[in-house]
């Protein structure tokens, strides 16, 4: 058990150091703290959606599948009852046309939702505080199936089905 004091001090220091490194790894690599911390070049834009589906804060924002930012917060517009999604985009050097469209997609069948920006053609670009007007809501699986069933059911008894749906 008897170890020279110096050796004990060195190993204890080493122990605490790798503890800090582990915490750093958990912070940066695992929970992706770095993307939300690099606020120097980032800017925020908002987008209104009719339905955001399963979208959560910190979901990725991509263009052509490349990660360019993340969802900062989600709130509800008290007048229009639409969802207001605030996006943090990482790089203000990259100019994204302000008529770009935002769509909510699902990664895989059971995966989580993310936002994909489809670039437009305007000369002006998105900047801090601007709003994306062209949005496509999340596809809700139940609605899709419902529409599918409705279409397969065909126009034969259109009149009898429509009132029940309105209920």
């Amino acid at each position, binding site marked *: 058990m008897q170890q020279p*004091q110096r050796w004990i001090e060195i190993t*204890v220091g080493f122990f605490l150091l790798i503890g800090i490194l*582990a915490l750093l790894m958990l912070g940066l690599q695992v929970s992706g703290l770095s993307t939300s911390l690099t606020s120097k070049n980032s800017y925020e834009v908002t987008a209104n959606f009719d339905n955001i589906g399963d979208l959560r804060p910190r979901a990725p924002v991509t263009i052509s599948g490349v990660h360019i930012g993340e969802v900062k917060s989600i709130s509800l517009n008290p007048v229009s009852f639409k969802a207001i999604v605030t996006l943090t985009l990482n790089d203000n050097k990259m100019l994204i046309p302000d008529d770009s469209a935002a769509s909510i997609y699902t*990664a895989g*069948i059971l995966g989580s939702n993310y936002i994909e920006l489809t670039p437009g053609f305007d000369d002006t670009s998105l900047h801090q505080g601007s709003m994306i007007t062209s949005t496509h809501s999340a596809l809700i699986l139940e609605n899709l199936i419902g529409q599918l069933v409705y279409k397969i059911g065909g126009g034969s008894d259109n009149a009898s089905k429509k009132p029940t749906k309105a209920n």
Partner: protein
Amino acid sequence: MNFLQALGTWALNVCEQLGRASCFLFATLGRRPRFIRTFPLLIQQLYAIGVLSLLIIIVSGLFIGMVVSLQGYNTLEKFSATQQLGQLVALSVTRELGPVITALLFAGRAGSALTAEIALMKATEQLASMEMMGVDPLWRIISPRFWAGVISMPVLAAIFSAVAIYGGYLVGVKWLGLDAGAFWSNMQSTVDFHGDVINGLIKSLIFGFVITWISVYQGYDAVPTAEGIARATTRTVVYGSLAVLSLDFILTAVMLGGW
């Protein structure tokens, strides 16, 4: 009637033990800290409790991460959702497996060693002779060990989690051939630093407090014979593990509910 009597006696005993353990804890924490004198003792105990537990924590972490990854892959494959493996491994490790398994290993490795050491000091009259020399054993022996345990536990849990996630990465990406980018980015978009990582560390801090408390108390309270030391060591592991598992349930309920 006999049964009721036995139950009552048992309940009284439990209360008495708990009360004595609490008094002991307050007596230990109430000792006036003399930092310059205590610091070298604390370093010594951090070595004995933290550094010497490092190997078992790293090896167990690596293997548990690898196993979770392998099992998770096989299950996720059925739903063709294998790109979610990263978040599965990271969430289960940071929220539950990291704090809990580290605590159980800690109870077995460091807790039992603490109990045995203190009980042996009691049996060989080292504590009594220290007291007769006018040195308070609670301050000199118990307090540094207690604080070293409380400090070591979250550090060990963080190391365990990091190593386990790396183990999951090795199996998922290097062996089963998942895309590294999907693995990490799915993980990053789901794992929340406060909700998952920090809460996991808070859990392990509480576990460390409870296990070290049980260990030093069992050692200090042990019957000073060979049999008494063996019993105290066993009790440390049993009570420590039970306390960790039941506390884990309560803490998880609190954290999922309120935080």
